[in-house]
């Protein structure tokens, strides 16, 4: 079920939060209505952890994680690292990595089985990712953009990518990731998908600017609706997704 929320009047909720199947991280400093939106959906299922990374609030773009682990940049302070380790369940491995590209959320897009990474990532970092997150790694670009973490989000059930992705690329990525992918937008036409929304296997949160059409696309591709009249969805899909070749 997809929900629309705002962080301090900003629709880029993917910047201030991170959602996985095992935990949810949110930035400190927002209003209580932001937290209550998360806690209403998630509180009894997974831990919702308030944190900062390196003293900043842009935690969604700095860290990368799935249900197996969480990767943090070298700017994370020791206290924040310890706080995350104490708040997250023991199955989640918390690791800080020394990497030149420190905005891991922009460089790594992952679900529980597969990860797409920035082409210029270090070899050692790639090994650490494979070890901590337990994923298979593919170095890819999306629509010619190397920041794969910001241009696509995918969960174990589906994925949404940059609207300018060609059909061939879409098919290629779909076979790599083994999930159905759709090229679409979020937050009234914003191409930066991962900044505009966060998703896991059963919920999604989008910015408040997201139109109803975008929301229905999200709900269908990530399979968030339990029972869906497929005819309506198919019809909608034809009118929504143009081909960019």
């Amino acid at each position, binding site marked *: 079920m997809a929900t629309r929320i705002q962080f301090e009047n900003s629709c880029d909720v993917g910047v201030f939060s991170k959602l996985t199947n095992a935990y949810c991280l949110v930035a400190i400093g927002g209003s209580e209505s932001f937290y209550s939106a998360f806690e209403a959906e998630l509180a009894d299922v997974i831990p919702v952890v308030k944190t900062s990374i390196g003293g900043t609030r842009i935690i969604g773009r700095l860290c990368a994680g799935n249900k197996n682990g969480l990767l943090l940049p070298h700017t994370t*302070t*020791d206290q924040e*690292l*310890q706080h*995350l*380790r*104490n708040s997250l369940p*023991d199955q989640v*491995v*918390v*690791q*800080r*990595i*020394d990497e*030149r590209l*420190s905005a891991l959320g922009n460089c790594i897009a992952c679900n529980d089985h597969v990860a797409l990474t920035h082409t210029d990532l270090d070899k050692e970092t790639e090994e650490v990712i494979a070890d901590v997150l337990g994923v298979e790694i593919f170095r890819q670009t999306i629509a010619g953009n190397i920041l794969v973490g910001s241009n696509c989000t995918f969960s174990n059930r589906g994925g949404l990518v940059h609207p300018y992705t060609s059909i061939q690329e879409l098919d290629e990525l779909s076979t790599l990731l083994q999930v159905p992918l759709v090229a679409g937008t979020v937050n009234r036409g914003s191409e930066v998908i991962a900044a505009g929304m966060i998703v896991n296997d059963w919920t999604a949160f989008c910015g408040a600017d997201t139109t109803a059409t975008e929301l229905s696309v999200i709900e269908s591709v990530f399979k968030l609706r339990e029972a869906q009249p497929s005819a309506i969805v198919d019809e909608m899909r034809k009118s929504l997704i143009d081909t960019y070749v």
Partner: protein
Amino acid sequence: MRLEKCWFCSSTIYPGHGIQFVRNDAKIFRFCRSKCHKNFKMKRNPRKVKWTKAYRRLHGKDVTQDSTFKFERKHNRPERYDRNVTENTLKAIKKIDKVRVAREARHHAMRMKGTKAIEQREAVKELEQSIHMIKAPKALQPKPSLPLPKIKVKVSQPQAKDNMQK
């Protein structure tokens, strides 16, 4: 807050001190004071600058490998907070410090061993050769004006001892 090490001299940088330089390849250089920063800007290699820890370690002046050093490494995978572990760690820190200081002192003593004998020999030689710097050569010669030549006579001590016993 984290106490970092100076890139040049390896001393600890306390909060409020020093400068951090971030190079274009995103490598961070931290300096404890302008001395180290200026040396870095002059492109000096710390391994060749005598007063840095890098030089001292490289040239064997300070302890190089020790098991106490591995406690100070930056750890990237934390463990869950456990009160007992924290308490034991705090106690251990004090002990490890003591051990480390003792080992460094021992290393220094080993390095300086044997210098006393050398210094002694050098002092004796200097006394022989350079005494002319202190006393004029004529003053060292026996004085001819004295009426009688000086003769050394051995005096037996036991009488004095017998007196003391009484």
